[in-house]
């Protein structure tokens, strides 16, 4: 058995894979958070709850309608997106002119309500959600153990993140978003329907969160609070990466997942807190974050 730094290859590679797997979720969620904050100037605390919503909707639709995983991957996020449209139009729009802290508090309240309702309806225990048949099983490549589902998630998440990045950085629609992030009223005065842009941006980010939720369901337990602890780590990721850059959010997400995975091998007790510890260190030396602009 080959070893690297005294750690057997299968163990190391397994943890790296796991790290990237967790990182995929960090990346998807921090991407959404960064996009929402950039344009709407709102820290969407509800992002974890939207993630959970995606998982729960997938669970329910799977139970009631027997939809296959592939269908759930499409339908559940869309439903989360629809909910997000309602949330933006009814609630969020009222805090746009205010201090961003109000947005944080408002979405925190929404998260409490969503999670509380989920707890009320489904209890605290996790619901089982089986992996799709086609993706179960593992492959062995060069001493590395590769569970198919996890590789699938990593690849899909990466493609989604890069696709979103391209959409924002390389298309005219993305140009609207980037310009509005710089100067919202002016873009609106030039004739761009900014209110719709805001709603669509929020809904799209929510869709990404819901999508992550569906992908997470087979691995993590579908439970009312599955999003709430995740969101705090994502906050740390976003503070580390800085919210100015989409690419930075994606890179930070995967990188920090990787760090977490490696820490589990080397010093398992610290795995839970390594992201926070890194955040503390980064803040000390580079307050605006690794990829952020000094703000």
């Amino acid at each position, binding site marked *: 058995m080959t070893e690297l730094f005294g750690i057997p290859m299968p163990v190391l590679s397994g943890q790296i894979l796991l790290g990237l797997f967790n990182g995929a979720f960090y990346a998807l969620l921090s991407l959404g958070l960064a996009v929402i904050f950039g344009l709407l100037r709102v820290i969407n605390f509800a992002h974890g709850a939207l993630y959970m919503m995606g998982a729960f909707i997938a669970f329910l639709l799977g139970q009631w309608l027997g939809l296959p995983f592939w269908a759930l991957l499409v339908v559940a996020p869309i439903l989360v997106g629809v909910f997000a449209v309602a949330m933006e139009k009814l609630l969020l729009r009222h805090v746009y002119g205010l201090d961003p802290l109000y947005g944080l508090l408002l979405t925190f309240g929404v998260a409490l309500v969503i999670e509380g309702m989920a707890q009320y309806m489904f209890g605290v225990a996790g619901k089982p959600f089986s992996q799709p048949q086609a993706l179960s099983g593992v492959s062995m490549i060069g001493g590395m153990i590769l569970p198919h589902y996890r590789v699938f998630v990593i690849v899909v998440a990466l493609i989604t993140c890069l696709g979103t990045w391209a959409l924002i950085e390389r298309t005219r629609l993305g140009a609207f978003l980037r*310009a509005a992030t710089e100067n919202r009223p002016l873009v609106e005065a030039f004739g761009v329907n900014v209110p719709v842009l805001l709603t669509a941006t929020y809904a799209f980010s929510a869709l990404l969160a819901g999508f992550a939720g569906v992908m997470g369901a087979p691995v993590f337990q579908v439970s009312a609070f599955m999003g709430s602890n995740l969101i705090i780590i994502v906050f740390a990721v976003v503070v580390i990466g800085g919210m100015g850059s989409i690419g930075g959010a994606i890179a930070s997400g995967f990188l920090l997942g990787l760090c977490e995975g490696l820490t589990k091998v080397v010093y398992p007790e610290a795995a839970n807190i390594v992201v926070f510890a890194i955040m503390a260190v980064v803040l000390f030396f580079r307050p605006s974050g690794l990829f952020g602009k000094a703000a």
Partner: protein
Amino acid sequence: MTEPILQIENLHGWYDESHVLYGVTLEARRGETVALIGRNGAGKTSTLRAAMNLLGRREGSIRVNGRETIGMPRHKVAYTGLGYVPEERGIFASLSVQENLMLLPSIGENGMSVARIYEIFPNLRERRRAAAGTLSGGEQQMLAMARVLRTGPQLLLLDEPTEGLAPVIVKAIGSLLAQLKADGMTMLLVEQNFHFARRLADRFYLIENGRITDHFDRAGLEAHADRVADVVGV
């Protein structure tokens, strides 16, 4: 007589809590260049911002091509035919020059083609992939005008297009505006620089403390020279 393209009547405007415009009335007829002259803080920029629904509260009437724009949602105002070149240019720094140029939605049929724009502004074509924030002040001003010309406006609102620019650039902008005027464009030109405005404008409004105090055409330039000197210290 055909209706003026722009008719502002008794416009009152507020910026947050402060009352900045007190019953401004002015108009611009088709093909004309109208100058709004005043000092810093006189209300020139606020008037233009009011026309684009970028000011806070407004009362009164702003009609473009006969359509009342007060009460219209902000993102619909431009489609009445307005092309806005803001003070400080309003360039989106993180977008490329090309993206800035192509960003604005078309509002009229006779928008300048990109090819023609690059003909008129060759340095914009050279720098089209650069981030717009890296452009010099003069280049940004060119970009601000170019992108608006692409959309096909009937009325150009220009807020201090020469502010802070080198004389050679100012001259180039002057030529550009003169050419546009010769081609029939209607323009509302806001300026502190009276010399610049004087070469282009057909009619002049003087604004002080949010009120229009004088109004005259080219024939009245001599007679009002003292008033102009009062208002902009020329």
